[in-house]
């Protein structure tokens, strides 16, 4: 008799890597085929489990960067990491990998929520926010979105073409990219850190009671979340996801 999943229980599923492309020189996009994927809320993550020949296994969590109709991860290669270099450089298309999820019910955007949304990403923190942008498009939502995305240089922008395209085509989506080390040629502003002024100008004002989602390295998230609170945002409407 086939084993049936207990409702509410997260069972391990077998996923197959179907496609992988470079996002930047140090990050890759992995597309997985997961039979009977139940869908997810944008912002949720999955756990991956890797097992070596001798049975040694490890687990890691990755945010989903896709809308609920597919399973895509954006993996930043950490050079001395145990898992990310394997996922970026070794795992071949067609290989199977164990996965469970989706997980997490807090750092999620629900398309039924009509409040305007400010998204603030630092580096690879764009992944779960990209899932929100894509879900908004998939659902043909009219909720106004503003993305502020901090990267070191133009070469570090994940989903650069797609974001450029969506900024033009997705009505109600604004995209502001902040370069901290080097700007594109001819940019009007010098490189600089994301500060209160940029959040004030390119995010929604506190009076609109937006929902803010902030994702990136710890120091970045601390700074941005503090700045949003200082700008008058209700701390309960500032949701954060940190790594590193």
């Amino acid at each position: 008799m086939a084993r049936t999943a207990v409702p509410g229980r997260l069972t391990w599923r077998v996923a197959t890597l179907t496609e992988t492309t470079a996002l930047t020189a140090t990050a890759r996009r992995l597309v997985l085929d997961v039979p009977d994927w139940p869908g997810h809320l944008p912002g949720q993550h999955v756990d991956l489990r890797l097992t070596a020949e001798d049975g040694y296994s490890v687990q890691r969590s990755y945010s989903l960067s896709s809308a609920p109709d597919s399973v895509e991860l954006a993996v930043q290669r950490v050079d001395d990491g145990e898992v990310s270099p394997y996922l970026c450089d070794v795992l071949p298309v067609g290989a199977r990998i164990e996965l469970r999820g989706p997980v997490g019910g807090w750092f999620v955007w629900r398309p039924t929520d009509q409040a305007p949304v400010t998204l603030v990403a630092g580096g690879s923190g764009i992944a779960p926010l990209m899932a929100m942008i894509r879900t908004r498009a998939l659902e043909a939502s009219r909720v106004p979105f503003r993305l502020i995305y901090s990267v070191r240089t133009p070469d570090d922008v994940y989903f650069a073409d797609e974001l450029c395209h969506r900024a033009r085509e997705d009505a109600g989506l604004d995209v502001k990219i902040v370069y901290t080390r080097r700007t594109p040629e001819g940019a009007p502003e010098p490189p600089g850190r994301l500060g209160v002024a940029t959040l004030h100008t390119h995010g929604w004002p506190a009076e609109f009671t937006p929902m803010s989602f902030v994702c990136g390295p710890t120091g970045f998230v601390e700074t941005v979340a503090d700045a949003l609170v200082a700008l008058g945002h209700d701390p309960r409407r500032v949701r954060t996801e940190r790594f590193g």
Partner: protein
Amino acid sequence: MAIVSPGFTGRRQPPEVRLPPGQYLAEDFPVLTAGPTPRVPTDRWELVISTETGQRHTWTWQQLIELPAEKITTDIHCVTKWSKLGTRWKGVSLDVLLEDVETAADYALVQSYGGYTTNLPLEDLLDGQAWIAYRYDGEALTPEHGGPARLLVPHLYFWKSAKWVHGIQLLLEDEPGFWESAGYHDYGDPWREQRYQGD
């Protein structure tokens, strides 16, 4: 049966390092929080333990740090997979704080400045298993890591060790906290890998 990942060798820990299943060793101290970091000045800080009959026991910051404190060296395990070994803390045992609290409660709901909550059985707070910690690694506990004071209950996944602890409500019935209402395990024993509901 496990699926072997082609070409994956991994990085094994030496046999003397014992980690719960699915955990890896972290050298730094990652920060995990669902929202902005609350900043609570110690002159306005207060700890409130309330019972099922509505009795309240409160401590100011000064009263807390005058209580007998312990130094604790312990391993901590985060549900996001990192473990950190031999972390050093200083704090007041919940045995001391609960000594004069009369209760028939079996459960506790811990509340933080900023609105975070987490639940656990009362017995997991007793018998030298839990502390209100206010120093980490020889220094005052920083706001990012839960300062001025956090709950430390290291035998459970670290989300149970509520940062910015403000209150402990003693209850006759279990009431799920913040992550426990969002799909995470009610109890959270890392050695039984109780990460999510149903684990």
